[in-house]
């Protein structure tokens, strides 16, 4: 078969289709979005009847995937690293229930925070859940590991985590496909109590997981993805995890690495291989993308053994993603003097698109708040977070999805009045609803802006679960009808909107303002497609 040129994300998606997947569930999040996007757009997946869908949030995705596994079929759920925080309850507990059909949690980390609030390392979650973790080095390995991961999951009846990072997720390379296999038939778990985590059962299930640890270690030891490569120079041994292995190789164009190297792409870390390396070498250099997980394991609390170099001793910067130069320096290579960036080059941060409805919403809100002073807008995550930048300077917080409404409530409870929340439509159904219920139940005095641009904008315009439902949801939660206000964010309606906002800021209770106008990107896309379809029609 010919090689396909695929992003790391796409390689995982194609592999899942080929490996007998029955369902993939996800909430979008950079850099994981393209996995599910690919399956949703794949004709092949459609023909095979694979369920591929965006869900309200990562927790609902993970649970749907677990349900599919319960029914004996192969399931995948994908998320960005912070998405796993949302799905953590399902994730950790699924390691206790175990799996029936193969299930893979694909988690995409974003070291250097290209599009994220933090750079948490999901391998710690995998370790916490005590399940096998796969960390592919390149696109081909990402492809191959999906088949392997499903097998591993079914063999040990345990969920498997696949951890990738931005550079693999969003980098393209040639990928060789395998022949495709059939999905599983519907088949309930042999023990129909396996998934009931009542204490008495959970204790038993937990012991099963604990007993499996030695098998997981053995699997990692024998895995073809973990390798030991001998080297003559024993002054240093190198452990290179996942993507870091590429940067190591890049520093030796002839691949003539003088030191012994252990490549780690499957966890628990292969203890025997690492022990051999440790015993024969004078010092160890640990190269890993993310937090110093393997480095900490080796070092221990007292650090009484040999010298361990890595992120903790400063051989590698403590934060940020790796690159060939950082790794080269840690290997002791001279990094040549670089041409500096000329001083006249200015920063070019991302910004709201021309014609974006959020601009008009912020213009209204800013003016209405002038008389109260700054510092009272609790915002959330989405394109509208760019309202933090000049010229809007309109918001004061962005923490985690849904935190706008609940933080505004807390601040209102503390006496801040008015206290304003700004949340996008997709973020609202992701995790804003429960917070709004809290505010309604406590009659907290907050004004909530639900910016309804009818899409999940920031991640590229996936459908929003909130579409057409926002007022009904608010009503259902108990927001008073007369304090659910819909406005059209357009500059020509500025004065009219301003009056509405001013009124609601004065209201002593929960009010919801819904500025509603379609995202300019999805609108343009829709228009282009309409235009194309029309041109097509005229031709035929």
């Amino acid at each position, binding site marked *: 078969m010919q*090689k396909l*040129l695929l*992003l790391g994300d796409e390689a995982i998606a194609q592999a899942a289709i080929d490996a007998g997947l029955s369902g993939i569930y996800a909430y979008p999040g*950079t*850099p994981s*979005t*393209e996995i599910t996007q690919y399956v949703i757009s794949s004709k092949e997946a459609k023909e095979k009847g694979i369920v591929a869908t965006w869900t309200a949030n990562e927790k609902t995705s993970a649970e749907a995937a677990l349900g599919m596994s319960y029914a004996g079929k192969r399931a995948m759920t994908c998320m960005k690293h912070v998405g796993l925080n949302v799905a953590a309850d399902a994730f950790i507990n699924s390691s206790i229930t175990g799996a029936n059909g193969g299930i893979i949690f694909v988690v995409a980390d974003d070291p250097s925070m*290209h*599009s994220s609030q933090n750079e948490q390392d999901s391998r710690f979650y995998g370790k916490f859940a005590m399940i096998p973790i796969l960390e592919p080095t390149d696109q081909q390995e990402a492809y191959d590991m999906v088949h392997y991961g499903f097998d591993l999951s079914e063999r040990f009846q345990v969920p498997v985590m696949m951890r990738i990072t931005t*550079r*693999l997720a*969003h*980098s*393209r*390379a*040639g990928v060789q496909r395998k022949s495709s296999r059939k999905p599983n038939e519907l088949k309930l778990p042999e023990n129909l109590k396996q998934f009931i985590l009542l204490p008495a059962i959970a204790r038993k299930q937990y012991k099963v997981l604990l007993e499996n640890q030695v098998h997981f270690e053995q699997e990692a030891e024998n895995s073809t993805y973990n390798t030991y490569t001998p080297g003559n120079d024993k002054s240093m041994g190198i452990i290179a995890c996942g*993507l870091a292995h*590429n*940067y*190591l*190789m*890049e520093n030796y164009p002839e691949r003539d690495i003088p030191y012994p190297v252990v490549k780690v792409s499957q966890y628990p870390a292969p203890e025997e291989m690492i022990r051999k390396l440790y015993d024969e070498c004078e010092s160890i250099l640990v190269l890993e993308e993310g937090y110093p997980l393997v480095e900490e394991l080796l070092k221990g609390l007292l650090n009484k053994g040999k010298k361990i170099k890595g992120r903790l001793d400063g051989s590698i910067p403590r934060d940020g993603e790796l*690159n*060939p*130069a950082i790794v*080269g320096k840690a290997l002791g290579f001279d*990094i*040549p003097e*670089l*041409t*500096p*960036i*000329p001083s*006249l*080059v*200015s*920063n*070019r*941060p*991302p*910004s*709201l*698109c021309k014609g974006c409805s959020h601009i008009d919403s912020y213009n209204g809100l800013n003016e209405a708040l002038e008389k109260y002073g700054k510092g009272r807008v609790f915002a959330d995550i989405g*394109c509208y977070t*760019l309202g933090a930048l*000049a010229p809007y300077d309109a918001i004061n917080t962005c923490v985690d999805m849904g935190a706008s409404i609940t933080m505004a409530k807390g601040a209102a409870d503390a006496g801040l009045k008015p206290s304003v929340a700004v949340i996008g439509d997709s973020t609202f159904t992701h995790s804003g609803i429960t917070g709004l219920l809290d505010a309604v139940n406590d009659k907290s005095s907050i004004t909530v802006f639900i910016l309804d641009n009818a899409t999940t904008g*920031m*991640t*590229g315009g996936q459908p929003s679960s909130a579409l057409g439902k926002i007022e009904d949801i608010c009503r259902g939660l108990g927001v008073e009808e007369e304090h659910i206000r819909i406005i059209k964010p357009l500059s020509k309606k500025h004065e009219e909107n301003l009056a509405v906002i001013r009124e609601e800021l004065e209201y002593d209770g929960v009010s919801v303002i819904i500025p509603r106008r379609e995202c300019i990107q999805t609108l343009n896309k829709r228009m282009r497609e309409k235009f194309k379809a029309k041109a097509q029609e005229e031709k035929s």
Partner: protein
Amino acid sequence: MKKDIILAGVGGQGILSIAAIIGHAAVETGLYLKQAEVHGMSQRGGDVQSNLRLSDKPIASDLIPHGKADMILSVEPMESLRYLPFLSPEGWVVTNTKPYINIPDYPNEEDLMAEIGKLPHHVALDAESIAAELGTIKAANIVMLGAASPFLDLEYEKIKNAIVFFFGRKGQDLVDLNLKALEAGREFAQKNMN
């Protein structure tokens, strides 16, 4: 053979389509390829780049090492300078001269051009004007690709085939237009290598 290329521009300017065409030509040539892209937040009008690596040997890193890029191909003049730490001393900068101004502190244009003029190996062209003469500024990115083509170490035929492959679905007129744009960029570069 090894070519490490940094494609630079502003989110929305379509640098990934240039990368896709070069990538197609490289794969047709039988080369290995890795191409790191920027998705997500920066695509909203921020600075974006793509690391495109071609080689006749397997490629390890998705990222081009500092000081090793053979070319910076930029569709925006200020962005062509942002990645200079990655350029090798022998490397070429091929840049569009038409500024994309969406920030308040965009540098003075004369200073900017002077800075580009100081680079030891560069080609600077107004791709929009060249494309406009051919009929549409939409072909500006292909003009830029044409200007880069003499430095790519790929057979020109293969690049032309890739254009046919990408625009074929959209009709012969667009194919011809883009082939002309490619040629115009190439000619400019061959006459104006500095």
